[in-house]
């Protein structure tokens, strides 16, 4: 039991960096296309909904609709960036490209690999979320100083969604299963978590469900800061995101061990 645990957990605090650097090197070769792909979606939402719907909606929570939406898009872009990195790129390296197999032949453990992949996905999420925040600040929808405050939340959001997606790929037999995660978890979360309209608009039951979603916790941290207000329950939201980042990580490492080290 002890040795199985040792194989599933990171061996030390720095082994994961080699995996992160591998992914960074691969990303550098396609950085422009990758950034464009990651940012196009939230930008279209931001300006499409923000300007179009914004005319009908008027002001929400004391801010223009586009400013309200910008905060939601910062969190959403972090969510999608780390989710998609994990369910497609990481799954490919784990199952089809033999990348993980090659790494497991070195002195790294499965836990080192999972942590490296997780940190890399969170890095991409951080890049995406931060870019949206900077665009929002540049256009005057948020104060520049507020961007600094939301940076750690963006990173934590990236970790939480990468970790959740890691759990999905540890269980999924093939790519075909990811569509369920996308359509049944990620897309509904977008609408249940206050990204595009306030959670208060939802029926009571949905509001309670929404409180448990990692995206809602992230938005509740980011939006008040970007709109220049003080947020409520900051510790609680941070705690929830940490839980989403940490628990699925350990669970997925255990599941990967069962899947790959038979």
């Amino acid at each position, binding site marked *: 039991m002890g040795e199985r645990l040792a194989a599933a957990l990171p061996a030390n605090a720095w082994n994961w960096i080699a995996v992160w*650097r591998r992914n960074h090197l691969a990303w550098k070769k396609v950085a422009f296309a990758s950034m464009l792909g990651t940012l196009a979606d939230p930008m279209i939402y931001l300006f499409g909904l923000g300007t179009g719907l914004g005319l009908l909606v008027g002001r929400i929570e004391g801010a223009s609709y586009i400013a309200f939406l910008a905060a939601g898009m910062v969190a959403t872009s972090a969510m999608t960036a780390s989710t998609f990195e994990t369910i497609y790129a990481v799954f490919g390296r784990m199952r089809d490209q033999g990348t993980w197999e090659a790494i497991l032949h070195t002195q*790294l453990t499965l836990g080192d690999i999972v942590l490296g992949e997780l940190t890399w996905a969170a890095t991409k999420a951080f890049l995406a979320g931060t870019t949206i925040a900077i665009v929002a600040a540049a256009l005057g929808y948020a104060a520049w100083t507020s961007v600094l405050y939301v940076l750690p939340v963006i990173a934590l959001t990236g970790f939480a969604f990468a970790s959740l997606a890691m759990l999905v790929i540890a269980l999924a037999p093939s790519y075909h299963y990811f569509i369920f995660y996308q359509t049944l978890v990620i897309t509904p979360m977008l609408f249940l978590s206050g990204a595009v309209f306030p959670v208060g608009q939802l029926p009571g039951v949905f509001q309670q469900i929404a409180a448990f979603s990692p995206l809602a916790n992230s938005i509740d941290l980011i939006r008040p800061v970007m709109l220049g207000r003080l947020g409520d329950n900051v510790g609680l939201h941070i705690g929830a995101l940490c839980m989403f980042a940490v628990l699925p990580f350990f669970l997925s490492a255990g599941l990967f061990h069962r899947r790959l*080290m038979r």
Partner: protein
Amino acid sequence: MSNVAIDLTGVTKLFGNKLVVDGLSFTVASGECFGLLGPNGAGKSTIARMLLGMTRPDAGDITVLGLPVPARSRLARKGIGVVPQFDNLDLEFTVRENLLVFGRYFGMSTREINAVIPRLLEFARLESKGDSRVGLLSGGMKRRLTLARALINDPQLLVMDEPTTGLDPHARHLIWERLRFLLASGKTIILTTHFMEEAERLCDRLCVLERGRKIAEGSPHALIDEYIGCNVIEIFGGNPQELISLIKPYVQRIEVSGETLFCYAPDPEDVRIQLRGRAGLRILERPPSLEDVFLRLTGREMEK
């Protein structure tokens, strides 16, 4: 460090109810080339995975480089280089980048890695390919890069799972030559193969496996002497049944494989006399090989 590189005692592995490795024991000395020879499904790859701690035995003990595996397999892997059955290089990276990335997995600094890269490229005969993308290399070059990659941590032990499967003869001979160079420089090699020629050329000792069980062990020459011990006559082109009845009194044993008869005869001249004057027969007399041993032991032809 003791002079035993690998020790397996009573190792058994089950996948579900299927016995893949069955009470296997063998020892590999330092500096030796040890072969695991067997057809597909004999359990060769599973044994290789167990040596690396990537799958745990259901019974038995494994020691690699003096360390119990899988308990201390991470430490053992620091001293092991692996050539997997299927290349798992990073295709989007260049040759040099593949080595760089892999060296980092062993905790080497960029400077340390860059210092050994020229020697590895020279070893793999890839000096002019350092900046080529791996996806553009030939199969033989990829295999040589995989071999160079396995040497980045200067391992004492190399674990190779079918190192030349899928290569053309030229590429295969180049790999064999490189492996002999490594053996001459003192590395220990354990390799799995289903190529008789590969086992015969490279291995000091080998273990013949069938369905996870050891059916013979020894040096290629000792096995050939022990199980065959005489020249082999291959007869091709006649009706096998008719030929068998004709020459049976003059041979020790006859194997039929496809349309070819393999006769093990103490005195081949007696057999030739019997077949004289028969049209359409092709007769070849040759010294015995490991393949004959395998046929003898399993009664089946191996894949070529």
